[in-house]
């Protein structure tokens, strides 16, 4: 039996947005009906970087609105795409006249509603383009006719790098190319120890025996294709990192950004332990973690588990990663 802090389950997103905006008054401002979050001090004369998706992944995406990252974020209902009208409104609020970059995780509903928003924006004279983030290696089926890989934690890297480049004045074409390059060079694998529960539901979305992990989960509480044996971190982490190295064709001497991300109910104590194992494994393969990021950034409600993301890093990407950011969830 799960218990959660809430009033009416149906009000959980709007109440959280209200609290979020009230907690970060110097960073963000909330617009209601249609719901979206914009910077408290809107930028001028730059391409607007806008993202969005279902709620339940907090701090994604609203937590990344601020200087150096997003200009606006558009939250949908729990695990459901925002509507095209919401996306249009947020994009028009953020546009400074230089166009809008949409950073979209690859899910059918999100892709459709952002594509529609792009057509609605064109009718309003606002230029926009989409960077699709599809880093989840577990859904890499090689089927060109299928929905493709899901988008997960690499979206943080895309938002950080594109956000920094936009701040420096990059145009829409350059930003789109940059975002696509970062996404193409990112892969993620996620492992769950326990499912999360939807707001107001007492039961988690699946039950897992104590001696198994769900290997290759996404961020919507669904089961993975595969269950593997539970074991010490030193046995689980290599199973996650090794396929990433292979998929990205990383070779000795290359540099990566490594993101160890909690899925909602996993403690930092465990996440740092996982990061230590990631570092040991990559060190053995001669791959340098140029920049680490450890914490819960792209969650799946209160799922217990973590994801490991590797992003191939060149000098340009690292410089943009290092550029200042001041957002509720990421500041340096």
């Amino acid at each position, binding site marked *: 039996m799960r218990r959660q802090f809430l009033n009416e389950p149906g009000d959980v997103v709007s109440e959280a947005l209200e609290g979020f905006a009230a907690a970060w008054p110097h960073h963000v401002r909330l617009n209601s009906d*249609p719901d979206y979050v914009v910077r408290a001090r809107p930028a001028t004369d730059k391409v607007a970087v806008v993202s969005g998706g279902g709620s339940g992944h907090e701090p994604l995406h609203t937590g990344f609105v601020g200087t150096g990252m997003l200009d606006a974020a558009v939250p*949908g*209902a729990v695990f*459901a*795409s925002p*509507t*095209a*009208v*919401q996306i249009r409104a947020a994009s028009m609020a953020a546009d400074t006249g230089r166009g809008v970059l949409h950073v979209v995780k690859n899910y*059918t*509903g999100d892709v*459709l*509603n952002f*594509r*529609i928003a792009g*057509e*609605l924006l064109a009718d309003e004279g606002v230029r926009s383009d989409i960077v699709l983030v599809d880093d989840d290696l577990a859904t890499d089926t090689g089927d060109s*006719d299928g929905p493709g890989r899901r988008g997960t934690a690499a979206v943080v890297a895309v938002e950080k790098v594109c956000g920094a480049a936009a701040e420096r004045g990059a145009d829409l074409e350059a930003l789109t190319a940059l975002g696509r390059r970062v996404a193409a060079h990112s892969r993620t694998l996620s492992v769950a120890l326990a499912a999360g529960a939807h707001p107001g539901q007492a039961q988690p979305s699946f039950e897992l025996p104590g001696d198994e992990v769900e290997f290759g989960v996404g961020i919507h509480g669904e089961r993975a294709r595969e269950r593997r044996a539970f074991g010490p971190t030193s046995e689980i982490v290599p199973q996650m990192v090794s396929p990433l190295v292979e998929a990205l064709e990383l070779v000795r001497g290359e540099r990566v950004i490594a993101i160890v991300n909690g899925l909602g109910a996993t403690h930092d104590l465990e996440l740092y332990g996982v990061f230590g194992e990631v570092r040991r494994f990559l060190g053995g393969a001669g791959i340098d973690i140029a920049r680490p990021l450890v914490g819960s950034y792209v969650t799946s409600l209160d799922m217990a588990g973590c994801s490991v993301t590797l992003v191939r890093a060149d000098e340009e990407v690292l410089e943009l990663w290092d550029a200042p950011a001041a957002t509720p969830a990421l500041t340096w």
Partner: protein
Amino acid sequence: MADQLSPARVERWVHGFVDAVEESGEYLTDLDRRSGDGDFGTNMVTALRRVREALAGAEPAAAGSPFQVMGETFLAHSGGTSGPLFGMWFRDFGKVGADTGAFTLAMLAEATANGWATVARLGSAGVGDRTMVDAIAPASEALDRAVDAGSGLAEGLRSAAEAARGGAEGTSDLLGRRGRTSYVGESALGSPDPGAVTIALFYRAAERAAAD
């Protein structure tokens, strides 16, 4: 003029369509349960109730105005994938009818062709994929033929309604390759696609509005 669809008749069309979907709500949901996640009928009825509220008391500025309202309402309130696609479908009728006092058959043929292109592009769906396109495509072809033959409005819409119904019924024999149906495969065989059935209801309402 008899061979044009006046704003009053467009309203009759829209309200007739809303009524038909409400009456078929449970049937559509049942169809969706066989091929998807079972919320199609409910979502459609909810969105159309909002349309009815939005239309109440509004004086249509142009023949396409009610469709513009439908498009915006679906795009603003409908989650999932079929809702937004229907929003874009209605929007194309709103666009073609934006600057005119009444729809001609040629305008309706143009709106249908545009809507077909929009839904095919955004939904990546072609004929035979077991989607709303399987009802739209025959309706579009029937309208083009009717325009070429110089048919009257009522006759043209009757042929479109028949073609759309035939196309919708034909989806019973199709395996889904797009949308949620693609996950359930053969278990959906034998019942038509709810999106295609809804398109058939749309042209049936048009036929009635023109004929009354």
